């Protein structure tokens, strides 16, 4: 009897893992996810290094809440404000989802700025990671454009006049400005086309572009690895007395305390 027990356990485990094995054999996805998640990172990274993942999480929250809001929102001048009121006041937890989307927008931008500050102060934008800095800057710009185009959608007085000022600000740009303004708002003044145009840009064009850029951003992070802080003994160019340290994995097996100082 005592012999049978581990066998049964093994079988159960095998049964549980069977779907994963099935998937792995046909796609290699399990290995891919493991490769992506369980990477070697420097031993002395800190909470500052989590700001990128935090920004990604904020983006996912925006995407999910945005998709749900789009189920109830109506981008027409006669009904837009009423549909927002309906979401906020009538629908169950509508106030919560709209609030998450509205405040999450600010959280997304703030986290991106903090992430950018960490990368800047740690010098993590330097060779060979310049391209990733550029992609990140594009994501930041597009994130702010999301804010600009999304601000009109509640279709109240604040949204309307703030958008007029915002569009006209851009229309004062030299040479192309007089053409940029009409292209942005779909005419010389804000009208029904403006709302639909902003809605399309806000929920289709820009999120798609941001998602694609995030994919590139993560690809480069995985390919190039994570940078140690500048004060790290492992930082590039610092001499390493003694034999090279055994490779450690920050996520799987944290380094023993005290081994940082060599």
């Amino acid at each position, binding site marked *: 009897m005592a012999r049978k027990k581990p066998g049964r356990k093994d079988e159960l485990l095998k049964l549980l893992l069977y779907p994963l094995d099935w998937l792995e054999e046909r796609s290699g996805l399990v290995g891919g996810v493991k490769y992506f998640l369980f990477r*070697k990172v420097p031993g002395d990274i800190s909470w500052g290094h989590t700001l990128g993942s935090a920004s990604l999480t904020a983006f996912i929250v925006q995407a999910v809440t945005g998709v749900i809001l789009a189920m109830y929102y109506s981008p027409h*001048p006669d009904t837009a404000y009423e549909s927002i009121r309906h979401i906020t006041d009538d629908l169950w937890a509508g106030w919560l989802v709209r609030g998450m989307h509205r405040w999450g927008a600010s959280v997304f931008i703030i986290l991106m700025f903090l992430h950018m500050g960490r990368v800047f102060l740690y010098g993590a934008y330097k060779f060979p990671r310049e391209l990733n800095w550029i992609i990140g800057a594009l994501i930041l710009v597009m994130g702010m454009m999301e804010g600009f185009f999304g601000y009109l959608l509640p279709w109240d007085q604040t949204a309307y006049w703030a958008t007029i000022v915002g569009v006209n600000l851009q229309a*004062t740009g030299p040479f192309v400005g007089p053409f940029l303004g009409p292209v942005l708002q779909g005419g010389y003044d804000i009208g029904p086309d403006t709302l639909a145009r902003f809605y399309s840009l806000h929920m289709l064009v820009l999120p798609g572009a941001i998602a694609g850029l995030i994919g590139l951003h993560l690809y480069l992070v995985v390919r190039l690895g994570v940078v140690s802080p500048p004060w790290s003994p492992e930082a590039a160019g610092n001499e390493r007395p003694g034999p090279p340290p055994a490779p450690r994995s920050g996520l799987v097996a944290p380094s023993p305390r005290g081994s940082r100082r060599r």
Partner: protein
Amino acid sequence: MNPPRDVDPHGGQGTPHEPTPTIWPVGFAIGIACLFVGLIISTIVLIVGAVLTAIFGFLWIRDATSGLRAVPAQPQEEPEPAPSAPPIPAHKGPPAMPEPGEGEVVRFPRSKLLEATTLGLGGLIGLVVTAPVLGFTVLPPFIKQGHPEIDVGAVDDFPENKFVTTTYLLNPEQGEVSRRTAYIRNNGFLGDAPSFTILSNRCVHLGCPVQINGLPLKKSSETRDGLVVDRTPNAAAAGFGCPCHGGQYDTEGNRTAGPPVRALDRYEFRIDDGRLILGKTFSVSEVDGTGADAQIHKYTQAGPGQHIDGIEAWLYPLQPPR
């Protein structure tokens, strides 16, 4: 787990991959700053700034590209490629593509043709699909955007020398979003023709609605051909003010304070059978004189915040057709 990749192209020698340090960007920045300050306060500072920018920009570019312009090391004589191993002969049948014979030159192999065809056709399909889509995105805002003529009431509905706040729907099908406001003042007669001062309420700073600095009197509404026009006369109008950023205008629409770059836009108008008909708007740099005797410096309609005269007007050489 894949082995860690070596991303250092310098073979791990730790050579920094950065341009040589240079001080010129500082001068370049000072030049740019002078240029912008000069644009506002004085031409001399502007010229000094431009010269500084040009000089330091040149020096910076020279420094930054010094590495590229350095004489490249003489390339080593490439060794003659070793004669490759004889191709593996096909076991059965004739060769797929016979080797070109003596004196015969391969000009355009089939693989090249297929490659070019695939890329060319793909590009053509992409163009055919993209061009109308892009055009559809960009062009409609510029087409059929004219201002229809609006009948805002009988000439007698506008008391002399009082501004009347007149609002109407430019396009009733679009609803409230197309509501426009004009400040209309009857100046009496100039010769035989009635004279009107008709100002747009669109602030020429960034497009907020300017408000009349006066006392609104009783509102009257008129419906004509399904079009509602609201008229509110104002007593003792002292000018116009914008709630957004504090721009102020006098009763002729001239800027008196704040950030606007020119005078308020005006409407073209005509009198038809005793009715006042509003037409397109146009831009005004400034107005000399008042009322019926005003001299209006008229320009093509430009967007809010865009200069129409002076040196800054060079920044907006082209206006889209309206």
